[in-house]
């Protein structure tokens, strides 16, 4: 029983810190930058081309205009309309 608890607090903290540092550095070591545009399906977020209750993609923090009159979204994949809306809507501050 005694042998099982012989790790000192200092050693445990050291190991904990090393583990944390290792997992924190993982994303930095990832080979390629994943897509910035969203990858979710529009249907899964109830996307529609029309505003809902006066809210639309143009005022959503996840929306980025693409210069063609439409835009991309951090959540759903593909082209989205500035007049669109989905249930992830979050008003831009």
């Amino acid at each position, binding site marked *: 029983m005694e042998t099982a*608890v*012989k790790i000192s*607090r200092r050693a445990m903290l050291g190991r904990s810190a090393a583990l944390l540092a290792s997992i924190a550095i993982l*994303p930095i070591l990832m080979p390629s930058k*994943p897509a910035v545009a969203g990858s979710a399906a529009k249907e*899964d977020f109830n996307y529609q081309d029309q505003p809902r209750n006066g809210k639309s993609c143009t005022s959503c923090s996840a929306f980025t205009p693409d210069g063609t009159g439409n835009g991309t979204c*951090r959540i759903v994949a593909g082209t989205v309309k500035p007049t669109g809306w989905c249930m*992830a809507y*979050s008003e831009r501050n």
Partner: protein
Amino acid sequence: MGVNAMQMPKLNVVMTSVIAAAILLLGVINDANAVPSFARQTNLECTSCHLSWLELTPTGRQFKLNGYTLGERQPIPLAGMLQASITKTNHVDNNVPDAFKHDKDVKLQQVSLFLSTKYTDHIGSFIQWTYDGVEHHSSIDNADIRFADRIGDKDHSLIYGITLNNNPTVQDVYNTVPVWGFPYASSSVAIAPNASTMLEGGLSQQVAGLGAYFSWNKTIYGELSAYHTADKIFSPLKAGIKDTDAAKIDGLNPYWRLALQHEWNAGTNSAMIGTYGMTVDKYPDNLNPHGPTDRFKDIAFDAQYQYITDEHRASAQINWIHEKQEWNASFPGGSTSNSSDTLKSFHAKATYYYQMKYGINVGYFSIRGGADPALYPADEVTGSATGSPNTSGYIVDLNYLPKRDVRLVLQYTGYTKFNGAKQNYDGFGRDASDNNSIYALLWMMF
């Protein structure tokens, strides 16, 4: 323990300094939107994914089903959490001072660091590391690493994925299950009942679970996993947990989940009815994983309803777990009075939030089972005079969020029965209501 009493305060100072530095670092990392890493990754407000954190909305459930991968990977994908609290118990028994040594003390209850991020478009993680300010100990907390993908078209869709986690039900997307159920925060120093099922924390941060899940047409949600002792390559999933506290389970232990879900009015309303369960073969001695095991068969039924708008948000959850305990190892060894026991655990909760800022939760809980004096021994304050696990009560908590990432909670827990009785439950004259408590909490996310 390898460190003497004189060294302890010094190490606590070191630990506190490390935590303070981490918080300061996170403060520097954050821009004006001082929110956790998933919010930075998606650019969404906390309230898109949470009815009020930590209860998930349909958007939050989709984010989790998609493996935490939606949004843009952040260069420093860390987030932090701090809980400071004070607890006042209705009646302090001066004959048992150790049971109440933190009563009415302001405690740094918990500080957590999260590695919550997407790695690739299909792989993400939610990993929490927690410093317990009462026990002065830090270790891994909940961890869930996922792969997810989707196939289908406009009319038919299948989201599927793989989860590697260290706590049964941590991978679930509903707030009915034990890991994510109400109360979302509670006192770590109040007197606690003597019984709980295996699914209610019996294996938390001690095991490694690997499984596959799916969501079909947003209508059927299911999962099949197997849990194993977190050893060898999986030992990081119990990092910092003492061997004496880490359960050892025999072989692969199955866990399953099936739920029927429906959203309407573009996600404003959602409902779910489901079932889940697990069978665990556990060695009675954590330090000697050999010989016969005790078997725990848990079957649960749960249901949830949510109504979500900016102005008004409401939800209700119920969860019922039936556990059959077969003491194939403990009964012959004399640790239990019966060769088998049962436990039935029930939780119900209703929530209302106004303008996502002012909220109230009202909950009811009960756990019932047959008497087993060896399993639930008599002891002043914490024991049961009759060997009974029967406890029931209610929780009411008021929430105020002055900012979206700061929460103030005032919570009252009242017991109608405790460890078998309403009055004199411990045989030393203590009543269930003596354990009623008021808990005030400052809860911050960084």
